Structures are given as structure tokens and as C-alpha cells.
């Protein structure tokens, strides 16, 4: 069973969202997503300063099986992409919730109120539904 930390928020498209102390967000793909993709060989992260809409494709994770877009869960401004992933895409596989984060985002004013993010229990249900 894949790891779903209780303190994070999730999307149905398998992104996780961590709220940092200063109110900015850290975003990555879940343990389930990295496992389904297999060993990553290439990760493209957004550049700092880019303004993104909710649902906009922001990053690309590519394995030997497939290339997938990763979507912005909420609108805002990209503060940083994880530069380490260019040389070490496997960090997304080994530490999806840690060193394998993809980008940090400053949410637009009121943006968080308008989107529905899942708690750990609800995301777990999404995974169970997909397994059948």
C-alpha cells in the first residue's frame, strides 16, 4: 500500500500540497504516482516567477514508460522549481514527499478558497477506487 501522509492535502490527479510556515505551498507527486510511473528519467519543473492557473500543466515527469504532466492545484506564482531534480530525477521516486518536491507556489489571493483539495483519508479512497 502506498504511503499517504496525514498532514498533506491531495488532488485526484495525484499531486500533494504542503502548506509551509509562511503560507506558501510546496507541491509534488504522491508515492502512488511515482510508483505507477516507475523510475523517472527526466523531470521538468516550472521557472520562478511564472504565474499559473489552477489546473494548468506546470511540470513534466517522465519515466521509461510514460511522460505525464503535473498540474497546479491552485492558482498563484511559482517561487521556485526544485533544481536538484535535473540531475537527480530519482529523488521523486525515493523521497516523493521530501527532497523530491517539484515546485513552491505563492497562492493568488483567495485562490485556496476556490479549490477542493482532498484530505489524506479521502485521497486514500481515490486510490482504493482506482485499484478496482
Amino acid at each position, binding site marked *: 500500500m502506498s504511503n499517504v501522509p496525514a498532514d498533506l492535502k491531495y488532488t485526484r490527479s495525484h499531486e500533494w500540497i504542503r502548506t509551509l510556515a509562511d503560507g506558501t505551498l510546496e507541491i509534488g507527486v504522491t508515492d502512488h504516482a511515482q510508483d*505507477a510511473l516507475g*523510475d523517472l*528519467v*527526466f523531470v521538468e519543473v516550472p521557472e520562478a516567477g511564472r504565474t499559473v492557473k489552477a489546473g494548468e500543466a506546470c511540470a513534466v515527469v517522465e519515466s*521509461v*514508460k*510514460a511522460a*505525464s504532466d503535473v498540474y497546479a492545484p491552485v492558482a498563484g506564482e511559482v517561487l521556485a522549481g526544485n533544481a536538484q531534480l535535473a540531475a537527480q*530525477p530519482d529523488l521523486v521516486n525515493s523521497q516523493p514527499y521530501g527532497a523530491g518536491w517539484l515546485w513552491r507556489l505563492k497562492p493568488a489571493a483567495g485562490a485556496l478558497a476556490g479549490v477542493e483539495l482532498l484530505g489524506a483519508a479521502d485521497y486514500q479512497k481515490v486510490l482504493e477506487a482506482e*485499484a478496482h
Partner: protein
Amino acid sequence: MPQQEKVIFEYSTPGRGAEDQWPQDPGEAALADLPAQLRRAHPPQLPEVGELEAVRHFTRLSQLNFSIDTHFYPLGSCTMKYNPKACNQYAMLPQFLARHPLAPESSGQGFLECMHELQEMLKEVTGMRGVALSPMAGAHGEFAGVAMIRAYHRSRGDAARNEIIVPEAAHGTNPATATMCGCLVREIPVDAQGDVDLAALKAAVGPKTAGIMLTNPSTLGVFERHIAEVARIVHEAGGLLYYDGANLNAILGKVRPGDMGFDVIHMNLHKTFSTPHGGGGPGAGAVGVGERLLPFLPVPVVGRDGGGYRWLDESDLPQTIGRLSCFMGNAGVLLRAYIYMRLLGREGMRRVGEFATLNANYLLRRLTEAGFDAAYPQRRASHEFILTLKRQARDLNVTAMDFAKRLLDYGFHAPTTYFPLLVPECLLIEPTETESRETLDAFVTAMSQILKEASEEPGRVTSAPHTMPVRRLDDVRAARQLDLTWKPTAPS
């Protein structure tokens, strides 16, 4: 067991070679026109081997190939059917081979007639109004098709239409083509039965819609049952319908894209019309259009004037999207497709669609009886179908890729793996109409045997292949540290 073949440089011995067969030294005078900075300072470092060594090296390499002529090749979405030798033989007639593309039309009437008939046959079998043969491959044909859609909207002063709708069951190249042509891609979902989600389509169309790109049957190996409704929705919104010909083999002679409402189509002649492929080209991606796009066809196309044939160019089609290739496309490939179609005839083409579908459904039924899961069990297969090995991956820890690698040991080229992306742990299997029942049965036996191994002796499957010149390759490392250049090791 076949041995891995060394790189030819590794056979090199200084001074060895067939010097008498080298081209004559042209002499200094012949080189006088070459500026000094463009001349080589040193001769190229070519391998130095005898003729026999060179012949053996390349013969051994050719024997390591999996090809249609040697193996069953059920690579889904690729239509790896047998290429009848007669097509090759006639296309290699010296009168065709030696014809120069700049030769005057008057001396190439026979060739032009063949190309004209090919255009006419392709129009007839697809239900379109015009055909151009110049695109060099499927993706090139797609580019031509979407470029024509854009040209059509621009010619009507409707240039704001820049969105191409692509269902998630569409062919993988479609979003790339739309992007190449400067359009934005809007992806829409398919429902649990594999049909386009009509509510999502209705919500997606509007004044920005340039068109929709679909293949039918779709990449899920099922026929899009709502196609008439899809055409109505897109046309009413002012968009056009693009048919990706990747899966034309399934419906050849049975249903025509033109009759389904499509405005433009590309045909992978190297799939459906049996010209050689799998080696990276040359290919042919002819395009067909309905009434609305006729003025925009790429040039040249072959026209008929009185009793003769001639190239139609920009002066005949002033609104053309232009030229897409040198001359008129890959003549040798087009000739092979022409001969194939002449050999089949109208009746034969209907049998292609029927037997391709029959073979796929037979194989699907036998594999599900052998314990495999169909991705769309409630649907009849088209010319191809998808198995999902999700259950085997979960229960036995043996993946679709492991099955694919183990199939090589059993003498079968693997099906397409992990495509389409919608279906987890999938194998996309397309037997084509040219395989016998005995071959299909042998494939089922191999798959059943691998399934048995997966539960009794999984290591045998997960470490496959065992009988190939190379074992399981580290594809992750190959992708991360791509190195395509052979470098000599320093002599010890």
C-alpha cells in the same frame, strides 16, 4: 543462442582492405575548386576490414533482427502486416528505379498514371474528395491535415479558431501535431466503455474550436460508436473533423471516414497499405480531404489533362498550404502501396478489414480464456485489443514489461507495452490479417506458458530475456545517461 555482434571498428586491422576496389584518386586538378579550409587534413578513420569480414558482419547484424519476415510482430497501433514480395518486385523495375524526379512529364506518363490511380483508389476507399501523396510519414500527414484546417479557417476570416480537441483515446501524436501547428490542445475524456464523453465534448466546443482529432477505431481498440453525433456537435460549432489513419486497417472496405463526417484524413501507407516500416523510414503519409479543404491540398498532386497526366502546382491550387517535401514524396513507397492495392482490389480490401478484426477477436477470446484480463471486456475488439496485467503485477509482482521481455525468448516480438497510458500495465496487441490461426495459437501457448512461469517461477520472467544476445537492458540508465557514440578503447 545468437551472439552479440561486435562494432565493425573492433574488427579493424591496419592496412587491411580491398585497395584495388577503391575509387580512383581524382588528382589535385579535380580538387582545385574545393577551398583549402573545407579539405580534410587527415583521411577519415574508417574501419579496415576485408570484403568477407564486412559481408559477414552485416549479415550477422541482419540475422539479429526481429522482422515480419522472421517473426510474428503483434505491435499494437503499428499494423505490422506482411509486405507481399510482389509489391517490392514491381516497384524495383528499372524503369521506375531509374526515373529522375525532374524528368519531363512527357517521359514519365506511366509513373504519373500509377500515382493518379493511387490517388483515385485512396479517395474511393476513404470516401474523400481529394488526395495528396507528398507527406513523407504519418506525423507529416498529420501536420499537413491540421495546417489545412487552419488555412481553411483563415480563408474565412475566422483565424481565432486555434483550439484542437483531442480525446484521451486519440493517437499519441495528435497533441504534438496540434501544438506544432500553433494550436492549443483541449483534452476530453472517454467514458468507461471507451467512447468519447459527449457531455465533455459539448462543453469543450465553441467559437475557438478549430477541429477535433480522432482515430476510429480508437487507440483503445474499440470503434467509436457516437461518431455521427461527434461529427454533428463539432460541425455545428464551426470546427472540422480530422481522422488519424493509424487504425484504418480495421475498417478498410467496410466503413469510410468520409461517410462518418470527417473532413480530412492522413493514411499511413506503411501500415494499412503494406509498405515496409519499422526501420525509421522511408514512409508515406498521404492526406485525403473533403469538399471544404480541396483548395488547400499540399502540392504537387497529379492531375489529368485530356489524355495525359501532369503535376498540379501552386498555379493550379493558389490556396495550397504549399510543398512539404522534395519533389512529390517517397516514390518507391507510393509505388509499393499502389501495387498492393491493385493486387487486392476492392473485394480484397474488404477482406483485410474483416480478417484483421477476426484475428484480433479470436486472439482476445483465447487469451481471456487463458486467464488474461481484457481492458474493455464488454466491447468487441477492432483490429487490436488491450490486455491489462494489473492483476498479475499486483498478485505476482510480474509486470507487462516482464511478459514482453519473456515473449522474445519464445520467438515473438513483444506487443506494444504501456500504451495507451489510460490503461495500467497494458499490452496493446494487433495480430493483423496476414497471420495464420496456427501462429495465433502458438502466441496464446507462449502467453499461457509465461503466465504459468509467473506464478511458479517468477524470477524466470522478471529476469528475461535469457536467449537474446543481450539480457535485460537497464533502460533507466540508458535514458538518464544517453551515449550513442562508440569510442575506441586505447590499445593496451
